[in-house]
């Protein structure tokens, strides 16, 4: 699949004023390259192309120095991603692109200094993740920026599909809040204030003999979980009981998990259709059988486009 074959897209991620914007723009540009566009990325200060971050985000893009970009590439672009104007590269080429994709913190022109941690905090997505007795946890990596990049790419594709001039704005804050809709909706719809590790916190990780597993289950799965762990205490028969006596419940079940490997736990749980899974690291996943069977991780650890179209992964 190469839906953007023949399209030329200017990726100004390296010239964004702030890192969240740069990472969002770079992710949108990366996806466009995987969809077959010629993506031109003028070099800039925000993303080092020699580091893993730059190598991941800039794979498949055509690198260009600012000077070379102006002189050699000319004004014909179908779309531009990033700041609309940048003194270092001039705006003539950007102005020639009929479709502009821009990122901001709160909306066009509302760009206070911001980090991804700040976006997680302001959106509530920091405060809700983690155990109640521990600090909140920030989702690893660059989730707010990358999610904005995904949204930006979808919108850019829609604009290209529709044709004609368009300016698409992506608010990093709106996207992060959109991801955290359950918390917002709980307040607006039910009048509830969900809290970290609160009444719904019956999913958590537990130590196994060789790492951790994620204990994840719905109420319908509890009889199978109870049988697997040989739990006999009637206090834990209901969800309310398990939440009320969470510490005792955890103390009771910990030894069963700690005595087994992640693989053994997963095999036993999955045989009972309990959605428990092993916590795996990226290093372990480089040789993961599922990923290997589907050809997901390429040379140098580079993840491929995370879908296949008629059995083939788009690859630019």
């Amino acid at each position, binding site marked *: 699949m190469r839906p953007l074959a023949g399209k030329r897209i200017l990726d100004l991620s390296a010239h964004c004023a702030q890192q969240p914007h740069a990472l969002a723009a770079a992710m949108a540009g990366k996806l466009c390259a995987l969809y077959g566009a010629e993506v031109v990325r003028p070099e800039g200060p925000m993303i080092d192309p020699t580091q893993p971050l730059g190598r991941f985000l800039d794979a498949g893009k055509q690198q260009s120095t600012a000077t070379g970009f102006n002189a050699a590439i000319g004004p014909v672009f179908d779309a531009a991603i990033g700041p609309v104007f940048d003194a270092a590269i001039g705006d003539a080429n950007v102005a020639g692109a009929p479709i502009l994709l821009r990122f901001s913190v709160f909306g066009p022109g509302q760009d206070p200094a911001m980090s991804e941690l700040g976006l997680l905090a302001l959106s509530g997505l920091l405060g809700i993740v983690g155990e109640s007795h521990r600090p909140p946890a920030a989702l690893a990596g660059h989730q707010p920026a990358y999610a904005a990049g995904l949204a930006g790419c979808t919108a850019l594709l829609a604009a290209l599909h529709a044709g004609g001039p368009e300016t698409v704005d*992506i608010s990093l804050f709106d996207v992060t809040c959109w991801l955290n809709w359950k918390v917002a909706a709980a307040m607006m719809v039910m009048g509830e204030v969900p809290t970290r590790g609160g009444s719904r916190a019956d999913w958590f990780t537990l130590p196994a003999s060789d790492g951790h597993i994620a204990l994840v289950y719905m109420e319908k799965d509890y009889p199978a979980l109870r049988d697997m762990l040989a739990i006999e205490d009637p206090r834990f028969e209901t969800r309310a009981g398990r939440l009320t006596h969470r510490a005792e419940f955890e103390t009771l079940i910990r030894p069963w998990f700690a005595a087994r490997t992640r693989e053994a736990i997963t095999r036993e749980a999955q045989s009972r259709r309990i959605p428990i899974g092993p916590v795996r690291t990226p290093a372990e996943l480089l040789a993961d059988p599922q990923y290997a069977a589907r050809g997901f991780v390429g040379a140098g650890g580079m993840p491929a486009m995370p879908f296949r179209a008629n059995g083939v992964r788009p690859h630019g």
Partner: protein
Amino acid sequence: MAEAPLKGIRVVDLGWLTAGAATSTLLLDLGADVVKVEGPGALDPFRNWVGAEAGRPWWDESPWFAFTNRGKRSLCLDLKDPRGQAAMLALLATADVLVENYRRGVLDQWGLGAAELRQKFPRLVIASISSQGEDGPERDMVSFGSTLEATSGLASLTGEANGPPIISGRDVNYPDQVVCLFASGAVVAALMERERTGEGCHIDLSQRELTSFLLGEEFVAAAQGTPSPRQGFGPGCAVEDDTAFWPGGGSAAVRDARGLSESAEFQSGTAVLRSPDGTPAKGIPFRFATRPLAVHDNCHSLGADNHAVMTEAGLGPADIAALEAGGVLATKPRRGPTK
């Protein structure tokens, strides 16, 4: 004002809960016509998410369901019944896109598997959103969103350096949220490809792969022998007294649900909008300057559009009446609430 980008595109939505259903909602927001298909014995679990009161039409009163599915047309059709399967095929003959996140293999049992549909409808774009993808040794692994955080690598890097790995849990279920932003784009890309080639396609999207993809630099770092440790809030960052701090002197309040919903930025933003009837609705994470997007319609009651959708699919009044008489078309579930 220019037309919405996906004006004229028809989507059949077999998406449940968030991953499938919210993908279709984004396509709706971009201008597509979306028909949500549920069976009288197989409703979207969001209809019964927080319990249901016996004696009331609970299936039409779930705010969680309405939040995500506002504006879609509703068809209640029993896909386990061969007559329902035939009606579904008639509907798909008029469609551009099918979005589904059923358990792998279920649609095949009903003659609605991707391979069969691709053969019957070569221009159809089929988006299958699954935990692991269509094949591989773990294809049938049972997973919820937070299971995928564990198996994708995300949990291993989330949390304090000296604490356990952390999953986002039931209140977030992160992989189920973020996949919608990507899957909707993949569908638009497939529609563009169809314009180029005349052919639809089957999109085989693994949520686990996407979650790993969003840690791509960590895979590259691991492959070069410099894997990152779990490091809490990141270098130079801290959280103290409900305030997050980052290098360069920046800070922001760590908001809870109340703080978020009462903030000016949230209220003027687009993450949560309102349906025309005033109820809170899933928002739209992008803004178009020449094609303003909005929530145009309320949530439809179950089966409210049975007649219109089946008529558009080419069924006559007698066919539709027969399906209703046989319980294949319905406007309420066969059974009571499951909680």
